């Protein structure tokens, strides 16, 4: 890896990790939501640096575009979303730090020790890559492809059932707000 590539990789890593840190540490949940944007952009940049062109565009379209909008709308439904006095951590913080450090150390160990198959091929142009992905989706992974559609359908129907469950004149937003913020976190 030459110096320029390393510089690009490090700056994209910083662009991804620093906002991610703000996402978990922001006292206002809305600020946390907005910090997701540079984080998603950093991930998109990493895809671009790896010349995974289709994933770069998808990351921008789906995550930075659609998922972020969904998360922000979910946050706007929650009560007391702007409560900057509450701290984002509790007494389990040292335990969590220990577990995270252990996981990071383990992953790094595996990444460094594993004999990765390194190819010297230059990445294919965007069209060739995307066509290969399409072929794989249609021929080898046809069932997962259709199951993905079922999964999207389930999400759609679930959201409609949640949002339309009470047809009374005064809808009760509190339980819905908890549920919707839960689903958004799992996206």
């Amino acid at each position: 890896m030459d110096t320029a590539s390393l510089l690009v990789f490090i700056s994209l890593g910083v662009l991804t990790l620093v906002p991610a840190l703000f996402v978990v540490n922001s006292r206002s949940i809305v600020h946390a939501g907005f910090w997701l944007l540079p984080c998603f952009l950093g991930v998109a940049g990493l895809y671009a640096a790896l010349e995974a062109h289709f994933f770069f565009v998808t990351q921008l379209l789906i995550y930075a575009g659609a998922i972020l909008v969904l998360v922000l709308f979910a946050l706007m439904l929650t009560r007391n979303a702007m409560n900057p006095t509450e701290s984002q951590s509790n007494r389990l913080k040292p335990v969590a730090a220990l577990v995270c450090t252990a996981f990071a150390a383990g992953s790094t160990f595996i990444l460094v020790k594993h004999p990765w198959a390194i190819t010297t091929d230059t990445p294919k142009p965007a069209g060739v890559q995307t066509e290969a992905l399409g072929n794989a989706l249609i021929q080898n992974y046809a069932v997962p492809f259709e199951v993905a559609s079922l999964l999207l359908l389930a999400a759609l129907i679930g959201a409609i059932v949640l949002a339309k469950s009470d047809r009374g004149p005064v809808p009760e937003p509190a339980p819905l707000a908890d549920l919707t913020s839960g689903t958004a976190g799992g996206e």
Partner: protein
Amino acid sequence: MPVTAPSSSEYLPIIVFTLVGIGFVGATLLFSRLIQPHAPSKAKNSTYECGVAPTGNAWQQFNPHYYLFALLFVVFDVEAAFLYPWALAYRRVGMYAVGEMILFVVLLGAGLVYAWRRGALEWE
């Protein structure tokens, strides 16, 4: 990791465009900060509300309907993303690929029909 330098990839225009965009916004804000006269008053500092005095907190719960529309948007955005690799592979695979995509779109279309029938697309 086969990371390529920005100079050797097609992403250079995007990088330049992003930097110019950020720079333009930053320079505009800085320039306006430098040349503006500084004379704040209570009326000037209040939230601009088309001339009407603002009432209440800007932070209020939104209609859950917004969430539904956002989720519909995500679902069909994902569908659109799947169409790109399919459209490229379709040239070689042919009718089999068309059948698969029809099944995919019909499944999601059923969701849209369900949303429509439940009145989820109507604003209350």
